[in-house]
């Protein structure tokens, strides 16, 4: 049963937390506290329908359709890989503590973390466990180049050939896990740091998780609509969604986002991404022009070679 809705009602400062509502719906709360919460819920246009929905979710039988979705959960041989990731996370030190061989865990010798589709939806955080907090942007650029799962670029990444993600476990390099830890450290240091959602979105792009990337870039742009890197990243993420879900409108939106980014400042990564989007839209002349503009500002031989190849292909397509 889907909870039907009409006009929007937003949460207010008096609204209980998700944890309180969940504990109430699950019966894991003291009676006195339950009474106060219920008094709020019956009068609140936000909490009322929300609570009804989660009570229903908590009590209803799993339907056949839901069972089919659940059947997509990781196979047992991937469970071991998930377990390694969880073991790592559970042993990470909290706050500013350093993780330095406690309980026999040698950070320096730690193998790359193996994650499955469950953990590929990045939009989440790990707890800082390193002795220092290196630059997350640099770490992300490194991991991008080690993986290059997407054709679109992120700032600062060295050239690497594109490797399409296949089924099976995704092996994320150590630089990636260190980037996540560094992002978390930034967030803990300053919860209002505007760079955090942008960096999180870029981390999602590196792992080819466009859904989570879009959500994070949306947050970044809500904080700063003129964040050039967030505009460029959002353009790439939306373009990926457009290709994955066959949504031409997404490609047009991506084009506009990238143009806005370039309007603020033209960079190699945003120009590269715009050229790709023009290709996907079938706007071959514009793509060819964008590749030319890119070649005017990019010095890396690897990226230049790819751009030259693509520009030549665009010119071929325009020939009668």
């Amino acid at each position, binding site marked *: 049963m889907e909870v039907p809705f009409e006009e929007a009602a937003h949460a207010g400062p008096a609204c209980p937390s998700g944890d309180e509502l969940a504990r109430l719906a699950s019966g894991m709360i003291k009676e006195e506290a339950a009474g106060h919460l219920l008094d709020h819920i019956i009068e609140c246009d936000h909490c009322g*329908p929300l609570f009804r929905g989660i009570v229903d979710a908590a009590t209803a039988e799993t339907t056949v359709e839901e069972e089919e979705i659940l059947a997509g959960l990781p196979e*047992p041989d991937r469970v071991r890989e998930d377990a390694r990731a969880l*073991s790592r996370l559970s042993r990470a030190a909290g706050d500013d503590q350093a993780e330095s061989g406690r309980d026999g865990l040698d950070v320096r010798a730690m193998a790359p973390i193996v994650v499955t589709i469950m953990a590929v939806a990045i939009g989440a*955080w790990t707890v800082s466990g390193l002795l220092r907090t290196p630059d997350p942007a640099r770490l992300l650029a490194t991991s991008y180049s080690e993986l290059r799962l997407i054709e679109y670029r992120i700032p600062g990444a060295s050239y690497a050939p594109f490797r399409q993600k296949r089924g099976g476990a995704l092996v994320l390099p150590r630089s990636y896990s260190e980037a996540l830890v560094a992002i978390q450290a930034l967030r803990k240091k300053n919860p209002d740091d505007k760079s955090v959602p942008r960096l999180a979105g870029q981390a999602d792009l590196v792992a080819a998780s466009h859904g989570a990337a879009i959500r994070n870039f949306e947050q970044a742009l809500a904080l700063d609509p003129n964040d050039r890197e967030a505009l460029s990243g959002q353009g790439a993420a939306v373009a990926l969604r457009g290709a994955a879900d066959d949504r031409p409108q997404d490609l047009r939106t991506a084009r506009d986002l990238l143009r806005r980014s370039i309007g603020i400042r033209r960079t190699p990564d945003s120009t590269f991404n715009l050229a790709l989007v023009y290709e996907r839209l079938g706007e071959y002349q514009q793509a060819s022009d964008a590749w030319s503009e890119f070649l005017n500002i990019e010095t890396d031989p690897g990226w230049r070679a790819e751009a030259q190849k693509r520009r030549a292909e665009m010119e071929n397509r325009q020939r009668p």
Partner: protein
Amino acid sequence: MTGSTIRYTGMPGGYLANMVKLSTKYQVNQSLTPEHVIQLCVDRGTPEAWEEFVRRFQPVIGATAVKTARRFGLNCQEAMEDIIQETYLKITANSCAVLRSFIPTREDSAFGFMKTIALSVATDYVRRRVAIKRDTGKTASLDDLSTELAAEPGLNDAERNVQVREIDEKLREIATPRDRRIFWLYHRLGMTAKAIASLPGVGIKEKGVESVLQRILNELKYLLAPAIAGGRSRRGRS
């Protein structure tokens, strides 16, 4: 999915039991209780302990995630994956502080505990992604209430708000706080008597809830009849 079933009991407060089918692909180490598995993860945190943890609790976490996603119109696969991952991160945060707070109260309470954690994560997830809107179910419930009270259904928002206020004023006079909550959970939120009975602080069974509702309705009909008749007269309706 077929295979062995693990039945987990409800939480304190009369929570309804639910069945979670554990796929045969998740073969568990039967010598360990769920509570032991949690303790192993907290104390040792080895990959083997977590492997057992995922096998045990993934189904209940996943089921909570997908059921919540469906009820709020989210993309089930994507939301399920996100909620599962965020649940595991909540569990492992701060050296598994959440797991350390777990106190077994009855057999299989571990599953209820995990379900509550997943539900908490899912609730926050929904709040971030869905504009929680006024509930047409609520409107329909209030229309039913108007019919029951021989008042007019199909009122506009302003008229309905006045009616609700009048009813609530009377409720505060004639009903205990608990009964008032029962009344509005039923008529405003559209919850069933069965679901209401399962909530903490209610303390009565489904039949008891139905009795409360009928009793209050009867009293309200008597108390509000003059006001309702006056309202009809002002609107020129018989």
